[in-house]
């Protein structure tokens, strides 16, 4: 019960709804909570972080981001359709370069 009261008070602090509590006096014969002040201090921060952190975020070690690079010095059209439209105007053939991965990523 004491622990639950502490938890509720700590959440109240995080919500800025109640003033900081005074440490409770353990009941006679009751067990004194150790690290009470540390718990009260840390829980609001953890709570705020938990609310603000995107649930889909994974550690950097798990999610690989392929660095973006310039795809060379060729003036690439964005789509095959765009290239064909340009070719009709210019009279040039279309060069379609197909690959695994992406030309604008470092590892391709």
């Amino acid at each position, binding site marked *: 019960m004491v622990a639950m009261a502490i938890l509720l008070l700590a959440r109240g602090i995080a919500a800025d709804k109640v003033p900081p509590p005074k440490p409770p006096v353990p009941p006679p014969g009751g067990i004194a909570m150790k690290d009470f002040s540390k718990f009260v201090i840390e829980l609001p921060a953890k709570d705020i972080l938990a609310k603000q952190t995107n649930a889909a975020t994974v550690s950097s070690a798990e999610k690989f981001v392929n660095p973006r690079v310039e795809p060379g010095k060729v003036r690439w059209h964005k789509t095959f359709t765009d290239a064909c439209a340009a*070719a009709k105007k210019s009279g040039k053939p279309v060069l379609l370069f197909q*690959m695994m991965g992406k*030309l604008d990523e470092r590892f391709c």
Partner: protein
Amino acid sequence: MLFSQKRVADFINQSFEPVWESVRPVPIVRIDFGDGKVLTRTLHGNILTSICTPEGFVVDALPGIYAESAYVAALQRLLAPARDLQRVAAKQRESVVRTYHRNEIAALARQARLPAGFRLPDFTKTAVIEKPVFQVVQANNTAAVHNTVPPEVENPAEWQELQEDTRINETTRRRQIHELLAKTGLVRPEKITRPIYKDVLHADLDDPYLGLREALFARYPFAKEDAAH
């Protein structure tokens, strides 16, 4: 790297309307050594360069990776049939293209025949870059790694394997391309991309493991457990 070379980029910009497409994500291998060092490589990537009419039909295609000068030379050779086709009446283009490819097949057949028992060598990228990584992944690295000096990244033209790849591209693989296009005639790129990747470049785009399943899982004791996850 190829398209960072000014000579290649200038030639393509002047002669073509270029566009690039990804046919599927490339497999990436990352080995985290646990001390901050992470090795990153790709596996089984390959390329296909198609020359198309402004209407979007494939005239010809270059399979695989080429040395820089050979790539430019091959593209230059493809300019002529592509431009010639545009001067032909639309209803005759189909037969013109098929005749072109049959003539190319005959020309290649007149070149030196391959020796008996010839085995298509690994692609440059596979042999030089990917194979060492693949051996580690396969966890069967009992064969001694051939101790050669790595090719200079700044001068891929010096890569012996790349030169060999180019030669194979311009002979065996090009013959396969010509045979396919002689049969299909004028065709949209999407109709031939998968057959070329599968039969010419030996990378089946519809296989989630790109042909590596046997090598990766045949002797892996935890394959069933992994599959369950």
